[in-house]
């Protein structure tokens, strides 16, 4: 069992779509929202994904195909 903490940023046209629900349906991962701010023009979320590594990888890849930006919770660490 692995865990991955991610910061998601939703594009404007994906705010109304249940993307996190879809991830839980398509992959064997537990989605645990820790903090979020969703508004008319944008939305972000601190999310923990738990499950087998391959399932987490699949979930992250799926989020990207849905145009959700997936960063580590630290955001950009390269300086």
């Amino acid at each position, binding site marked *: 069992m692995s865990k991955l903490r991610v910061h998601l940023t939703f594009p404007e046209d994906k705010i109304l779509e249940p993307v996190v629900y879809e991830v839980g349906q398509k992959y064997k991962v537990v989605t645990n929202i820790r903090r979020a701010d969703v508004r008319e023009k944008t939305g972000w979320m601190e999310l923990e994904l738990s499950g087998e590594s391959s399932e987490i990888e699949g979930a992250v890849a799926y989020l990207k195909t849905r145009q959700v930006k997936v960063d580590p*919770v630290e955001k950009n660490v390269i300086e």
Partner: protein
Amino acid sequence: MKIKGLQCKECHKTYEAVALHVCEFCFGPLEVVYDYAFIRANLSKEKILQGPKSLWRYEALLPIAGPPTVGLDAGFTPMVHAKNLGTELGLDYLYLKNDTVNCLTLSFKDRVVAVALTRAKELGFNTVACASTGNLANAVSAAAASAQLRCFVFIPHDLEVAKVLGNLVYRPTVVAIEGNYDDVNRLCSEISEEFPWAFVNINIRPYYSEGSKTLAYETIEQMGWQVPDHVVVPIASGSLLTKIAKGFKEFEWMGFVSGVATQLHGAQAQGCAPVADAFKEQREFIRPLKPKTIAKSLAIGNPADGIYALQAIRSSGGMAEAVSDEEVVEGMLLLASKEGIFAETAGGVTIGVLKKLAKQGRFGRNEVVVAYITGNGLKTQEAVTPAVGAPWTIKPSLSGFQKMLKEVETQMSSPPRRR
């Protein structure tokens, strides 16, 4: 004990002062909390003045438990009264904090790394690491070499040869990761979870970032224990600006200055301006973007402390502005030609924004303005190469030289041509 522990900037949950950077509860960033009453009782201007000519003269306000052990010569860089540049911009009291000559590696990152590695050693680490494209990697590699710590530097695989060399010379293990910047970010985050290493800008970040406060302390001390009316600060992760603000406030809490009302102005390049964009659009959130600018050391599209920098700028009454790559180069040349300081592209961004704000009338002629020049131009020579021209080439004869001199004098009354 001066360090009380760590605290989440969002939910305020507290933790012991260990190698931890994210709140386990809400995933917010952690920050060091101090016992200011204890520090105030034990710190005075006199004690500071008797301290070493380095950032460690402010050791009492830095997050280490014992004596400093790494980066002993970092900090206490010159504060330059920029009279020539000031005349150009209509400012009588323009000052430049010149971190282009910081020790060991000519950028402000030497400050944060000195604190990070000293703390890392205290916490028992013997391996340090960072994810970087430039200045941070140089600073970590050099400081780790001097402290004889094992060092891993993670870089994107397509980084310029010169920048890679600047790390390799210190003999760290340099790991070039095949993938884009997002891939490098994510892998480094995972590696920091997996290996018991001090990743300076990940699990040691709460301590590392505190090193930037020393720029504020030095500013106040070098200005004769005065706080400037305005500061212009380059924004990458946003941490530098927030820590300069914190440093000013801490010196007020220590009783060294009063009435701190400095306006904080943030400087970004237009090709990567997530904070300046949010400021202009009056947004309360940072929209991540893909950087495209020559100011690589500021090219952070989703900055960790961007939102905190935005809040600090707004609450101070300051501005966030951005300049084009052309203005960055102009800023570098202006700074070099007026003050003899060759800054890297981030310095060009700072000077470009300083000039822009001055033109907008944001500063009074008699107000004290400090601009932070954070890295040396020798590291980003390629940015100005096309703009600086070439030397005059002459035959080895006096008449040849005299002919050339006439041409030089003719040109001095007209704009310089490119040769």
